């Protein structure tokens, strides 16, 4: 099979999976109270979406409650009186055309992010996604740089100290909660850098590692963020912090933004490294006994080249495969780590939207977005795998 045929076939297979994911979110949305559905699709209105409201609020000179016309209009506009199948089809169509509803100006997330009124969810997510993507890219880079060499050498030096250390690392990656590791690392690194964790009006070492740029003025994170979306619109042409800073010619800021992402990227990478290490080590143990490795050695190839070029070439395949399998867990770590470090990405948005009062539109939006990222990443992994290992395409 030609490579491009394979790629097209994989991309076409994406459609039923995405529709399936949307069906799951639809079935959850279906159980939401009508008012929450109205809010997440239209934003809160002045009268609100109570079915019955006091008549004088509607300008009717009458005591008691009257039927709320906004509720009735919204109810019909949403098609809640139609059969489930029609509602489902509408939901899928809206989701596919990026009509994901709007944020709720009464929710905690709206308040915390500092924008008044409502905002289309796709707009909000579009401003936040680049930050998360850059964090993910740095994190993937750390995984590739650390997992493959450590895995290779722990197989070569089997049962020696480096192997034991790698095993401990691998086990603790499964057993340490990410938020705890992140907090301990943040506190440890910032106090090891000197200057303590005190903040006396000037930036200190804690501020170097905490939060995303533009730099926090001083610590208390209980202060809510100044106009989250607003500053983004003004200062970021692309949304990728490092790229933006480079475009503006501010290299110090670009370095600053990368440094801020190093610790969180490492914590996110840690869990994946733990999983990948084992597989790389096991595959390496198998490969080291194969004939071509013996041939390379007998040719007089230096041992280091045998490990890195001949036997180790297989490790990249294994890493890509395991990354594909664990990508959902990898993405699931972002809300937590972005919350610990206060990074202005999609994950922090999710962390805010699950505080009461909930912002259901945002919760579903972020879930859908992250799932689509996972599905696309799985396809990229499949294609990469086919590229790295030609046997896959033939099958």
């Amino acid at each position: 099979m030609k490579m491009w045929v394979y790629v097209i076939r994989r991309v076409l297979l994406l459609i039923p999976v995405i529709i399936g994911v949307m069906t799951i979110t639809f079935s959850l949305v279906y159980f939401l109270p009508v008012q929450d559905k109205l809010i997440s699709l239209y934003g809160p209105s002045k009268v609100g979406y109570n079915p019955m409201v006091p008549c004088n609020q509607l300008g009717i000179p009458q005591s008691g409650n009257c039927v709320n016309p906004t509720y009735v209009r919204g109810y019909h506009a949403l098609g809640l009186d139609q059969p489930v199948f029609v509602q489902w089809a509408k939901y899928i169509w809206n989701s596919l055309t990026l009509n994901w509803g709007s944020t709720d100006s009464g929710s905690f997330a709206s308040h915390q992010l500092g924008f008044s009124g409502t905002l289309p969810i796709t707009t909000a997510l579009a401003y936040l996604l680049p930050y998360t993507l850059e964090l993910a890219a740095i994190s993937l880079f750390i995984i590739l740089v650390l997992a493959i060499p450590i895995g290779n050498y722990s197989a070569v030096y089997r049962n020696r100290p480096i192997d034991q250390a790698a095993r401990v690392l691998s086990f603790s990656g499964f057993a340490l909660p990410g938020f705890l590791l992140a907090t301990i690392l943040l506190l440890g690194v910032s106090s090891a850098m000197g200057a303590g964790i005190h903040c006396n009006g000037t930036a200190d070492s804690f501020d170097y590692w905490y939060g995303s740029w533009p730099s926090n003025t001083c610590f208390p994170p209980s202060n809510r963020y100044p106009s989250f979306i607003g500053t983004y619109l003004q200062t970021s042409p692309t949304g990728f912090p490092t790229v933006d800073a480079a475009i503006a010619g501010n290299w110090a800021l670009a370095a600053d933004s990368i440094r801020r992402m190093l610790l969180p990227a490492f914590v996110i990478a840690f869990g994946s490294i733990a999983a990948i290490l084992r597989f790389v080590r096991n595959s390496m143990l198998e490969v080291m006994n194969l004939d071509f490795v013996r041939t390379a050695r007998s040719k007089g190839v230096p041992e280091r080249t045998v490990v890195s070029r001949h036997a180790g070439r297989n490790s990249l395949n294994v890493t890509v495969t395991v990354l594909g399998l664990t990508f959902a867990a990898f993405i699931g770590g972002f809300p937590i780590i972005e919350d610990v470090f206060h990074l202005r990405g999609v994950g922090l948005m999710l962390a805010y939207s699950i505080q009461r009062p909930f912002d259901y539109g945002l919760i579903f939006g972020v879930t859908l977005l992250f799932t689509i990222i996972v599905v696309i990443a799985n396809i990229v992994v499949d294609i990469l795998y086919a590229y790295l290992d030609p046997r896959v395409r033939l099958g």
Partner: protein
Amino acid sequence: MAASSAPTYKALTEKRRPSPRIAQMRRTWYFLSRNVLALIGIGILVFFAGVTLYGVFFDHSSSTELQDYCGTYLGGGLENTFPTPGCTTVCTYGEGMAPPAPNCYVVDYHEPTPIAPTLNVAHLAGGPLPLGSFTLDLSGSHSYSIYQGFVKGAQWTLLVATVIVVAGAGIGLLLGSVAGYKGGLVDEVIMRVTDIFLSIPALLLVLVILAVAAGSIPGLWGRISILIGGFTVTWWPIYTRIVRGQVLVTREQKYVEASRAAGAKTMRILGRHIIPNSMYPVFVQMSLDVGAIPLLIAAIIFLGFQIFPTPNFPDWGVMAAQAVNQIPSALVYCQVDSSCIFPWWQLVIPGLILFCFAISVNFVSDGLRDALDPRLRR
């Protein structure tokens, strides 16, 4: 390697001929007991089981709310097992002075300075361990007992994790074995749905379900069942995939063919032959997940989603998450008062509890995998 006290493999298998499954279990135990890490893991788990039993039968503090040491009680009608009522007046005393009452520790109600764990033996003699003064909620001047959180939290953590894993494995076993054995369209449909569920990150799926279901069933057990339900919906697909893969191998075995030739019905073949012989990878995955679920619950609570009925519910995850959430206010306080003691212990101890549980479970499941897979036996 030849331990004289332990019965050898040969002796175990040749003494008499037990049923094959018993023999298999003995064989598994034989290889498991040769694995040092697995034994360490089992030891830690036995310790946790002991703590759970102690918490259920002998510790009479509230099992739905953490003891509030010096603040006001958040709920009414709690039994105060610590004789320190009016903590502000009775139990405040200066450094270096003798405690005015026997069960008293240096806990100052007004100052939000966390109290470091004391190593003073005189304090230890007084009553419950000073572990009680470990967690301090700086914002509300509530200091919760880490000791109680550990003892009482064990039962909730273990109960929730076990029920979720058993329910998930049950659903996965049913769907996976049907998909693997029937094949064809049934297999295709079940596995595509499984793939879709697996592509949603677990944390997000749980959060969405819990957010939608929040408040739909009131009360303690309502909340707990929503929690368990949400996690079960997230956790069955992985088991379905594992079981299906295993059944695909098992159904080609000769004994299944023989059973089919003898005229056994599908359910009998599945129940008597295929499922029992596909169970071992499921056990390994179950033991892994029992360790992973408390970590995920801790992460969800850390994100600020209250899944338990009370904010100070005795659960390991709650302790760890609260400790981390209190770090900012501790830092702010330390900016004001440079003599403050940074409350490192309230991070480290709940973290260590979660870590020890998860890593011991990992050790055991790793050992189980080695013991059950003949190729990995050494």
